[in-house]
């Protein structure tokens, strides 16, 4: 058990590990191939509180603190990246943001239904022409009486193909950014599922088209004009924490695959692990996985304490673990040889999933910029 988690939280993590091994991992390959996260699995997770693990119990959550929530995410993420992606979106991006900035009515209406998997959401920020430069969203809103009218397109939105609602980030003619809760059933909302993805193939990624969609004022999430400053920043911060653990999870899963294969496969009359060059790869992978987990736990502790530098420590963890996930899965494919290039083994799927983590929730290059700004202050020696 990790020292920073309580006994009850540790039990949730242990149960999640068992659940992941029994219910999720056996489906991971099929989810990747079919591009579909089974509704039955989503429902089971809702029944167990796995879509709301970090939320307070009053909203159907399990009340896990950030460290325990991270360890929980790791267990799910090791078993299946797509299933972990569901948790990242529902619990971290949407739920945590609504908990902080939602009205009492919004929280009471949406969160318990999300916790039970009766309502799924999607966070609609990225657009065909807007990625890292999120302040430049081209989706627009204008006010007409007691409603806002939304127009525009969103792209690469995880779970948009099956979501019941979207948190849409849009700008008015003056560039003021606001976020809106948009129900799928509103007239003018249209989604187009996307295929051909490198990873997250079972995350029901879709484009969203909004044409003269009328949204009542009570569907504004946070304050008018606070869409980027508060909603996007908060959602992505929580998302980055989840992705940091996703990186540690994929790297950890790849390490286990690497070890198992090297101990079972023989070439030239020797097991692979007996060759020094293979031992070098394993030694590097072990070190990287340990370092990745340590950074995630450190970020979790800072988040638990509510310290302002949690944002920076989370960026550090996300940047490092996604990089490590790519490196370790790359070496896992290498050790698997030809078998690593085929879907008969999980190595190639882990390799593809790892790369995505260097892009989502802020590219590695954006993280480097944030981290350097933090470091230039923190480590400047005053004369």
């Amino acid at each position, binding site marked *: 058990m990790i020292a920073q988690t309580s006994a009850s939280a540790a039990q949730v993590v242990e149960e999640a590990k068992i659940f992941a091994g029994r219910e999720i991992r056996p489906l991971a390959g099929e989810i990747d191939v079919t591009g579909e996260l089974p509704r039955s699995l989503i429902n089971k997770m809702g029944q167990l509180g796995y879509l709301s693990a970090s939320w307070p119990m009053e909203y159907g959550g399990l009340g896990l603190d950030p460290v325990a929530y991270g360890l929980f995410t790791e267990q799910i993420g090791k078993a299946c990246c797509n299933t972990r992606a569901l948790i990242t979106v529902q619990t971290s991006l949407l739920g945590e943001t609504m908990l902080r900035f939602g009205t009492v009515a919004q929280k009471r209406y949406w969160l318990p239904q999300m916790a039970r998997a009766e309502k799924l959401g999607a966070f609609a920020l990225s657009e065909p022409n807007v990625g890292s430069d999120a302040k430049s969203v081209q989706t627009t809103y204008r006010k007409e009486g007691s409603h806002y009218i939304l127009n525009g397109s969103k792209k690469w939105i995880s779970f948009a193909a099956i979501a019941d609602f979207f948190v849409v980030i849009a700008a008015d003619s003056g560039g003021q950014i606001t976020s809106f809760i948009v129900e799928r059933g509103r007239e003018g909302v249209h989604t187009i599922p996307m295929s051909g993805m490198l990873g997250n193939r079972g995350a029901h990624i879709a484009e969203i088209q909004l044409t003269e969609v009328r949204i009542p004022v009570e569907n504004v999430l946070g304050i008018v004009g606070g869409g980027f*400053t508060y909603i996007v920043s908060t959602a992505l*911060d929580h998302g980055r924490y989840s992705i940091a653990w996703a990186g540690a999870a994929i790297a950890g899963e790849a390490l286990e695959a690497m070890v198992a294969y090297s101990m079972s496969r023989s070439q030239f009359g020797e097991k692979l692990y007996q060759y020094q060059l293979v031992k070098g790869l394993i030694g590097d992978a072990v070190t990287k996985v340990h370092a990745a987990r340590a950074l995630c736990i450190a970020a979790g502790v800072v988040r638990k304490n509510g310290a302002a530098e949690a944002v920076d420590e989370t960026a550090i963890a996300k940047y490092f673990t996604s990089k490590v996930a790519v490196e370790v899965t790359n070496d896992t494919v290498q050790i698997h040889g030809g078998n690593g290039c085929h879907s008969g083994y999980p190595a190639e799927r882990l390799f593809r999933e790892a790369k995505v983590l260097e892009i989502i929730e802020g590219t590695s290059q954006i993280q480097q910029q*944030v981290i350097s700004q933090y470091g230039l202050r923190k480590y400047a020696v005053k004369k």
Partner: protein
Amino acid sequence: MEIKQKIRSFIESNLVVFEDEAVFTDDDHIFQKGFVNSLFAMKLLSYIEQEFGFTVSNEDLDIANFSTLNNIVKLIEKHKQEA
């Protein structure tokens, strides 16, 4: 340390400009001057809530309340009086 000094120290520890001329008065708009990055508002919110022990309500989230040192101090003092 008084409130204003605490807030000034926090802002200074998060400036993303490093030249000697990166100075700001108590009434300078720190966001418009480009002295902080896009994550700063959230960090400032976390700092205020943690350091001064209250949750900033949606009604008080107007960026104007966080735009200058004096405005931030006013917001904190308002909450201290209400407590």
